């Protein structure tokens, strides 16, 4: 589905090589030491960081130079996922109608998404009034209405407590499954990997290794991964 062909990401002295293919509807976790380039890898997939070499193909179509918005994916960042001065409804609406022109039918869909993340009552509230978990759920509702075939997440729930994080991960998994999208999530936590991922991309030593089945990998990690997991 998404093929990164002989990709090279270069930023100053930093270099990261990657060559892998992601399949539709699968859940991938990206793990690796801090500074290994996990976030950068996602930014490159999403188009925020250009590829220094190699190609990015979506279903055979070359999207190496496509603008971020023109790629069939969406991304949740570590923070700043919402516009603070727009209401919850407006923030979600932007995922559906990037021109703000919401018709009645759109509103139904948005409210449905908000209901699904249990925030229907907060439609007119500004994000500043919400808790961290609630803010994450708004962002998830937007992912839901965006319905892109690939969702990238850069440690989106890092700031949440364990129980809340698990709750969010489950909600995320359900949401993604509902849209049939594939998911790539950067995370630090091995338990997240077990909870959500089908396959794991391990990033280390300037290299993003091709995805390996999560269960097998976590049960019997190679030496580098073992060193990372500790």
């Amino acid at each position: 589905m998404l093929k990164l062909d002989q990709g090279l990401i270069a930023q100053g002295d930093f270099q990261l090589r990657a060559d892998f293919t992601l399949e539709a509807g699968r859940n991938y976790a990206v793990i690796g030491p801090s500074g290994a380039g996990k976030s950068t890898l996602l930014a490159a997939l999403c188009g925020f960081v250009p590829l220094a070499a190699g190609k990015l193909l979506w279903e055979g179509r070359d999207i190496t130079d496509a603008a971020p918005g023109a790629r069939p994916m969406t991304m949740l960042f570590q923070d700043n996922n919402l516009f603070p001065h727009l209401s919850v409804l407006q923030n979600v609406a932007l995922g559906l109608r990037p021109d703000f022109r919401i018709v009645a039918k759109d509103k139904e869909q948005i409210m449905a998404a908000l209901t699904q993340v249990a925030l229907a009552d907060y439609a007119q509230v500004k994000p500043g009034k919400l808790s961290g978990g609630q803010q994450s759920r708004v962002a998830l509702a937007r992912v839901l209405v965006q319905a892109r075939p690939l969702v990238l997440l850069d440690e989106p729930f890092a700031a949440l407590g364990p129980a809340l994080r698990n709750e969010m991960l489950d909600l995320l998994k359900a949401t993604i499954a509902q849209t049939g999208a594939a998911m790539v999530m950067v995370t630090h936590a091995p338990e997240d990997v077990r909870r959500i991922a089908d396959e794991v991309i391990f990033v280390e030593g300037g290299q993003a290794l091709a995805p390996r089945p999560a269960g097998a990998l976590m049960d019997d990690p190679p030496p580098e991964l073992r060193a990372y997991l500790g």
Partner: protein
Amino acid sequence: MAQGAVAISRVSISPKTGISAALLVLALILLALVAVLSRADASTGLGAGDWAAIRFTVAQAACSSVLSVLLAVPVARALARRRFIGRGALVTLLGAPFILPVIVAVLGLLTVFGRSGWINGALEALGLPTVSIYGFHGVVLAHVFFNMPLATRLLLQGWQTIPAERFRLSAQLRLTPRAMFRAVELPMLGQVVPGALALVFVICLTSFAVALTLGGGPRATTIELAIYQAFRFDFDLGRAALLSLVQLVLAGGIALLALRFVPMVSVGGGLDRLMPRWDAQGGMQRVVDAGVITLAALFLLVPLAAVVMRGLLGLPVMPVSVYHAAGVSVAVALGSIIVLLALALPMAGWIVSRKGGGMEAIGLLGLSASPLMIGTGWFIVINPYADPFDFALPVTVLVNAMMALPFALRILVPPMRDAVQAYGRLSVMLGVTGWKLWQVLLLPRLRRQIGFAAGLTGALSMGDLGVIALFADPERVTLPLQMVRLMGAYQMDAAAGAALVLLVLSLGVFWICDKGGRGCAET
């Protein structure tokens, strides 16, 4: 997440120094006013002519400020999202019209728009009817020439405070330009525009020579002209004080009104990631931006080029005394910068620590007070005790700093509010307060803005004639005064040369401070 932090700011900045600075400014203005009143005899009060002047002043200031800021929006927007060769120079030159002595700028404008100017020359050559610059529209045109570039700089700074994360989010949500404007740019404008409007309004409120010269006659009488007349020709101090008070109340009222509407929602803190922009890559938008930048640059640069050309011709006949005067002016500018920072930083801190932004209006009072009133008032205060000449430089430095205060506050307050909202909580947790807070958080975060404010103050102070005329020390003539003296002695060419020196020095001071603030970062 930064968005949750709205109400935490009040704990972290001590308001004491800021309140003292604000009180000092208030005292300087009010004491001058009281001093003038103390010497007033029976006054004639305000006549029909004065009311006409008040109406005209408010009308032209309202028109000029709205137009200046409206036109500045597309220019700042285009400059914020385009990179091209000469962009840095253009951004620096945005400060130029504002710091030129009025008469120099007016002559530059007339070279282009005047009766025998380039535009009318071209119209005549094409067999078209000529247009006259003189009238209400001329006043507005000149004020837009002076203030639109300034407003552009203020708005551009607003664009720079938008965190890169917002643009990233917009890009990946595929926001249309219109939606992007509404979701990202409009909220920022909501924070920046009211202050910019108030500032330009107050600047235009005290306009005098521009309004009279381009207004085409006594129809274009402003309050400041009436104050001038009351002081200089009628010596009616009561009327002068009354008119000054009207001016202060108008400016203060507008400032309070505008600043009340500045929303307190922060644009949000970002992580200073340097990121390219992905929006507005469409062909049409490129064309529009290029057009906007070209038009603005022409409007700005052509009259400036006229000033420079005239100045180059005058340089050879310029006397040595101009360089002495330039030295004095540079010293005054440096002094003003120091005093300004001592006033503006604590005041900005105080304003940020309050819920509303209304107190910023105190800063605007300094600008809206007639320089003639301040000068005369302080002359009356000092004269019985000491030779006013001994106070020429300190008074000039202080008043120049005060005139620059509202600009500095406008520049410093919004980003300081952001910094405090984003990192204030962190600072409190770390026990960073007082001077340490300035050292660790505020000064480094606001480096760029402090540089900009200092540069603007230096440049403004170089070109200012305000009070120096009354306190003019025969031994230490400033450059603008020297230029006026040259003009008064038929030395128009030498005066043009002096104006060029003034322009270059002002821009130099501005550029050094601004560059120093920006460091190596790209604007």
